[in-house]
């Protein structure tokens, strides 16, 4: 038992418990996998053109890209990501509900720094949101969620709309937020379709019960 007494001394506690245990975990299960996924290729996620439905708001790709970052900033400051996750798991019938299962490479771009995986779904996942609904649906939903879904518990975000006009028009921030939402998952294979043409949505795989 005498040897065990060293476990209660400053140097052991400081070095072994405080530093070594933490750094082993940090290195093995933090930095190593992070470096692994950091190298993945995400050329599919590159933005080459302004989507058709946003051409009235943004003239150039640069403007559109700027809007995506602004939209993401709003998404963060309103804590959207606390109620809407951004990854599809290969279990729980999530693929039939939302679309293609998420892969690591998809997230390797500047727009995902910091990432917005989220840990709670009060509302549905949004990583395959691109093109599922029209921009007008999104504007109506953000202004008053109960107008598109009467039982929704989502708060309304009326401050992204100019209320002096009738009907209220989205402000540039509001448009940017919808641009960001409509960009989520636009790169994934099963949502590569003419935007908003519901006939071309690929049929989901058979549910697994």
């Amino acid at each position: 038992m005498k040897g065990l007494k060293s476990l209660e001394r400053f140097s052991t506690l400081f070095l072994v418990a405080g530093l070594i245990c933490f750094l082993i975990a940090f290195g093995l299960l933090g930095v190593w996998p992070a470096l692994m996924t950091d190298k993945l290729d995400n050329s599919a996620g590159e933005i080459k053109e302004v989507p058709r439905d946003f051409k009235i708001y943004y003239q150039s790709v640069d403007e559109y890209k700027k809007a995506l970052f602004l939209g993401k900033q709003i998404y963060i400051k309103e804590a959207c990501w606390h109620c809407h996750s951004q990854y599809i798991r290969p279990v729980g019938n999530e693929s039939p509900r939302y679309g293609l299962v998420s892969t690591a490479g998809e997230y390797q771009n500047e727009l995902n720094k910091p990432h917005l995986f989220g840990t709670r779904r009060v509302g549905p996942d949004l990583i395959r949101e691109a093109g599922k609904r029209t921009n007008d649906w999104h504007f109506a939903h953000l202004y008053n969620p109960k107008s598109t879904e009467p039982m929704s518990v989502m708060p309304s975000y009326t401050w992204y709309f100019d209320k002096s006009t009738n009907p209220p028009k989205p402000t540039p921030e509001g448009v940017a937020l919808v641009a960001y939402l409509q960009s989520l998952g636009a790169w994934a294979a099963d949502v590569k379709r003419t935007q908003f043409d519901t006939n071309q949505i690929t049929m989901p795989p058979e549910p697994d019960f």
Partner: protein
Amino acid sequence: MKNLVSYPLIKAHLLISILYIMIVVLAGLAYSLQFIDLFPFPHIEFLSPGRIRMVHTQGVAYAWIANIFFALIMYIVPKLTEKRIFSEKLGWFIFYIYNFLVLATVVMILGGYAQALEWGETPKLLDPFISVIVVLFVLNIVAGSIWPARSKPFYVSVWYILAALIWTPLVYVMGNFLPEYVFEGTGGATITSMYIHDLVGLFVTPVGIGMVYYLLPVLMRRPLYSHSLSLIGFWGLAFFYPMNSAHHFLWSPIPMWTQYASIVASVGVHVVVYTVVFNIFATLAADWKRVIDDISLRFIFVGALCYLVTCIQCAIHTTLSVQEIIHFTDWVVGHAHLVLFGTFSFWAFAFIYFILPKLTGVKIFSESLKEWHFWLSTLGIVIMDIGLMCAGLVQGHMWKSLVPFIDTVVASKPYWWVRTLSGVAILVGEICFLINIVMTCLSGWEKSRGKNEGSQESRAF
């Protein structure tokens, strides 16, 4: 010996933490009202539910828990090592700056400057300052109270607190800077998961357990049941907890081997929790009558029960098959409340009821308010957790059954009512607590004023 502990400094941290817990509970309650369509401030940008949620969680971690833990560290460590903290002036500097940063965090989150890091939404601008303050606090304790006493082996509380003092700044810097500036996407998520877990596992848990190991022998007036068990518990925590990280993002794009490793490490949590909880219960079992009579021991007892339940939950619901159903649901929300309110806030209440008579020089104002606080808090958290666990199972299974998403929202509403009502019970309990503490402080203040006047009079004669 008399000046070993700086009572005014501890009192300042303690009182401000009680103010914060009121704000935090109110914020949580307000947020929960959104789910049952009763949110009190709709259409107000600065008070939108999403922002209030961040105030709630940030307030719990950095305002309430951090302040009360600062207070108890500055009490327990000097008492055990018989060395004062490095500098009382530095302590006051930390108190003012840290609480200024907490207020700035609240204002900036409501103003829309939150960071995208769960449990770390403190604005990016404030992160460096908070890191520096935390490091200063650590130096104040380690350089003053721990380093000069290093020639002898330490008591178990000091192991836990010393380790937490080293881990906390490392964890804070890692989580707040790496996903934001270094690793994008999935890599960032790997680090975030480590941060989410370590904030609770390597800051809140060790300080909380260290505090219980201090209070138990003092209040029970007998030694801990087993020294070896505490040794196993501590080293189990140091080894397993940091590796649990990726279990917060199971089935996510994070490399699968990382997820498997974190699940294996999560099973190691069993070792930690059974040794710690057995040690606590075995010490309490020596004299149940004392436990029933002493409110602090009762809070420790219920806290330990909640700790047992949460940690068994933790080790079971991090298996892949259970994750499939309960991830993304209210089950996890219930789990978080059970940890941070049921366990660590209860243990902090035990410490407050223990220390307040020493700080004020008078007994706690009202026995019945104590009882109300204890029973309302206990009832509130038990009902809330059971309700949210049920909600989680309903949501998870309904999602898997592919019913329209909105049906799962409708099905959750009764459970959200239960959550709000149990939240009201907790709020009323905390109001009893606040009144009791304020009245105790006032009578302590009157008594000391009377004493001063008395001593002046006696000097005059």
